[in-house]
């Protein structure tokens, strides 16, 4: 309980970097942003990459470093929770772009459009000429998960910076910093589990860390997997690959008694199977079909052990 009282702020926010230099990973791109922060004249840009790898953070850091105290008046930020329909683009955004604002030479107003891939294409279309006509005073920064959801004419106007997934070392580095500051008790296998399940998503790693601490105090492997609440992919993989049906069923039982729901198991099966390069693709497609149909039946309400056993049997049959 003593931990709960300490959790006034989510750690992801508490430890959100404020300076570009504190952002881990993607060194080349961050380096480039730092140069831009120092020199000014920020181009329009799109930062794209998976969730939780520091896109939003980077844009904020950059805007702060560029504008300093003027941030509040010279930055317009809209994210997915704001209305960003075509009307807003034609009114609010255009007006902000037209607004006069005295800034030092080389600095511009910045319009941040976070999660831009959720904007409708109509709204994106309406941005096109605005980005050009007011580029002398206003620059745009987009963050998105998939840059292909940004229409080509906008991509054409932007510098496209791609963030790659954070490596495990990078996630670990940051986690250890936080652990030190929060004085967390942990074991190595606990950290490994967090890193493994986060799959390069820093936000998820930090959230899982905090949840584990809040729930159990101690961060060890067992506690982490309880928090993460999905069957361990490695076990699922062994279940799908094992040579005999008996063995598969043994693994299934292991998961079943741990209390994972049929839906969780079948979804993990689907995900694991999709990338299971050990199985030839044509066979994999057949197996996916079986898993998928089981998924459908489970959704219809028959989330029984029998359904899953049947699925494994069919998969086993496909192997021969």
């Amino acid at each position: 309980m003593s931990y709960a009282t300490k959790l006034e702020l989510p750690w992801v926010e508490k430890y959100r970097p404020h300076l570009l230099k504190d952002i881990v990973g993607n060194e080349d791109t961050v380096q480039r942003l730092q140069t831009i922060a120092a020199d000014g004249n920020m181009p329009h840009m799109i930062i794209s990459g998976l969730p939780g790898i520091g896109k939003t953070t980077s844009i904020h850091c950059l805007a702060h470093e560029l504008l300093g105290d003027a941030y509040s008046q010279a930055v317009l930020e809209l994210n997915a929770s704001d209305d960003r329909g075509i009307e807003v683009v034609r009114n609010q955004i255009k007006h902000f772009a037209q607004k006069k604002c005295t800034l030092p030479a080389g600095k511009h107003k910045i319009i941040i459009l976070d999660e831009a891939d959720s904007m409708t294409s109509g709204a994106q279309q309406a941005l096109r000429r605005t980005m050009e006509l007011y580029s002398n005073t206003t620059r745009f920064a987009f963050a998105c998960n998939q840059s292909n959801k940004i229409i080509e004419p906008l991509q054409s106007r932007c510098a496209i910076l791609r963030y790659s997934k954070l490596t495990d070392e990078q996630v670990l580095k940051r986690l250890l910093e936080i652990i030190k500051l929060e004085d967390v008790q942990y074991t190595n296998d606990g950290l490994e589990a967090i890193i493994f399940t986060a799959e390069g998503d820093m936000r998820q790693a930090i959230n899982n860390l905090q949840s584990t601490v809040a729930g159990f105090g101690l961060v060890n492997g067992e506690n982490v997997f309880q928090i993460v609440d999905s069957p361990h992919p490695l076990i699922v993989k062994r279940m799908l690959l094992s040579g005999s049906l008996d063995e598969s069923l043994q693994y299934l039982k292991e998961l079943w008694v741990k209390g994972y729901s049929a839906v969780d198991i079948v979804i993990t099966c689907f995900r694991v199977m999709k990338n299971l390069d050990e199985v030839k693709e044509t066979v994999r497609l057949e197996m996916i079909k079986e898993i998928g149909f089981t998924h459908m039946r489970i959704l219809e309400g028959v989330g029984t052990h029998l359904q899953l056993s049947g699925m494994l049997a069919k998969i086993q049959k496909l192997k021969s």
Partner: protein
Amino acid sequence: MGDITDKLRAAKNKRAGHGTNHASPKKPKKVKSQAAETIDLDLDDDELELLASQPRRSRSNTTAADEKEQSPAKKPRISEPSSNGLTKPDVSRVKKSDSPQTVKELLDSIPSVDLDNVTTKEATQFSWKGAGGDGSGASSELEIPEGQANCLLGLTIVFTGTLPNLDRSTSENLAKRYGARVTKSISKNTSVVVLGEEAGPKKLENIKKLGIKAIDEEGFKRLIAGMPAGGGDNQQADKARRKLQEQQEQAMKEAEQMAKEQEEREKKDKLSVGKDVNLSSKSTVTEDSKLWTTKYAPTDLRQLCGNKGAIQKLKTWLESWSSGKKPSMRAVMLSGPPGIGKTTAAHLVAKSLGYDVLEKNASDVRSKGLLNASVKFALDHKSVIGMFKSISDDHYSKNGKRFVIIMDEVDGMSGGDRGGVGQLAQYCRKTNTPMILICNERNLPKMRPFDHSVLDIPFRRPDAQAVKARLMTIAMREKFKLDPNVIDRLVSVTRGDMRQIINLLSTVTTTSKSIGSDNIKSLSDNWEKNVALKIFDITPKLLSGGIYTENGAKQFPLYKKMELYFDDFDFTPLMIQENYTSTTPTLLRKGQTHLNAVAAAAESISEGDLVDKKIRSAEQQWSLLPLHAVLSTVRPASMVAGNVTRRINFSAFLGQNSKTGKFYRLLQDIQYHTRLSTSTNKMGLRLQYMPTMKRHLLDPLLRDGSAAIENVINFMDDYYLSKDHWDSIMQFYVGTDDTTAALKSIPSSTKSAFTRAYNNVSHPTPIMKLGVSTGRATAAARPDFEDVVDNDDEVPVEEENPKDEDEIDFKKDKFIKQVGKKKTKSKTKKVSSKK
């Protein structure tokens, strides 16, 4: 905690020995697998190995960056930047050490294709017979060869037939990239022919006649791999090299020239700013804090790269206005991908002829009403700015009071701009002011209203040669080093998007001041344009056999195939369904026939439909979407994949579906009217009554002509059918009953007599008659959901029958009213029976 780091590192070192499929040496990307190893779940070592080699898990599916890792290792390119940054193709250097020495020798070392054994077009047909012995299909390397720079210089290559792996445009681009000339027809200048299956028989004959070396795809790859940089040492190569050198020098000169001009102009600008204090407020933005694309925006038509012909056409068109006459087309439509200078060209042409510009773009509301308000006034008015300009300039005295309307980003008109496109198309026809429209996708259905109202001027992506001078100018002015040999690479990653290239350069040069062959690889990987593929690109890709072979599956794994589905998950399944019979499968299992494969695919598609129902019906099980991706798209495609033999068609489902809907509505209306004399439901009416009705409604007219009119009308009155119903009933018949021909055979005199006769007498109505032909005017305003309409943008069929839509609304309205009316009517029992 040091432990963990050590462990991770150790794991990494261990991995290094094995190397996953796509371990790129620099980026430690495959960390996932390290983690798999470090997690201690007491698996034995072998198993770990197995697990570790599994690259990544579901989440990484969306990584765009990941895609880049697949390209095969590149041989280092040879290029020697000379002092001014240009590579002079050094003629003397071409003596190379490795055998074979000459083009001829190399060509000789590549086996010729046996011309008598090539399948020609006639020989192959849609065959249902089983595939021959080797189940795996044709040789399946998807890998694109990497050769030395300009190694095919001086060769003239003709491609004919379908190559097993490289499609035509890829192979041609490949050849061009290495400096070869690619021509379509075979002549004596042709150095080599790359022959695929189903080559034209005429071409084969030519090849034989002229005795030209013919090689296959494998040979072509070997050619690329084997040729030395700068091409062979024969005469043509020499000539081509010299020409290239000249071109480069020319480009360099142009660059210098441009740079000088620009500097002078800036100086002049500065001077004039100094003099004219009023203007200075405008120029407070210094050049340095402008975007490069603005800073280097062409100020003169000559500075625009490429599209010279199109620009000239535009200019000629605009000039034809100035003589006081109006050209036959009063508006032009510039179309082409973004960033190739369309907007710039429009403005510059207008400026060069002394026109003022009124610009509207996607950031302005352009609905019908607002267009009326804001543009219409301009259509015949004169420019105010022009009136105040001094008349000293020659141009202005002629055109000064004229201006041109530029409607930019016309395809950006969307939901909010209701009626805008149609209105704009109308303006185009009657405007008294020249109008320049600009759009990206001319072929979108929503652009169809412009089809006959504008002069189309398509803009194309400029090629490397065209942009070279411009980019070198920028490099020179910005003082960074740009190796001219990498420009074509820049052009190809950005797909010819000049603006993107300039943006790219401006960003990259913040940290590195030189761009050359050493860093172009990583640059292009990072900047590769990542646009959602369009369905017409997705479909052939999914149906091509290459990605399903063992090797293909490695290069383009399952999750990527599924991503293609997710690029447009509404349409991709429909497109597969439409086109899955248009292939010749290359991956048939032993003994399996084409028909078997098609049947299996059809089965899978129908299973996909079951899933689709779960997703889209009330159940809304969106978590089944990945399953739908597999069943409706990837799996059927994998079964029939091979060579696409027919044109990819747009899904007919939507059209048919809306047709069905329309007929249902018509049927409902007819059933409603006939209800007093029939006792059946809609289906019964269609199945039982209609076939018989035809005998009374149409056959008499065919047989007796005008004499039958009265009988027919009596029959119609018996069933309370109007003339409109008569027309719609005629559309219902299908197959042998189809009435199209019969209707045509009725003389128009009979037809008009029929109409007249019908209109002359009053007819019994079961309900109060409502206006029929006012459909358009009374069509209810539809709610203005931007998203909804945006989606419609991609539904061509919707627009195919713009009338239909109105009809729907109208009919709906009518029904609501009719039902209401009917109640009151039936109370008054005014149902007349005129028998």
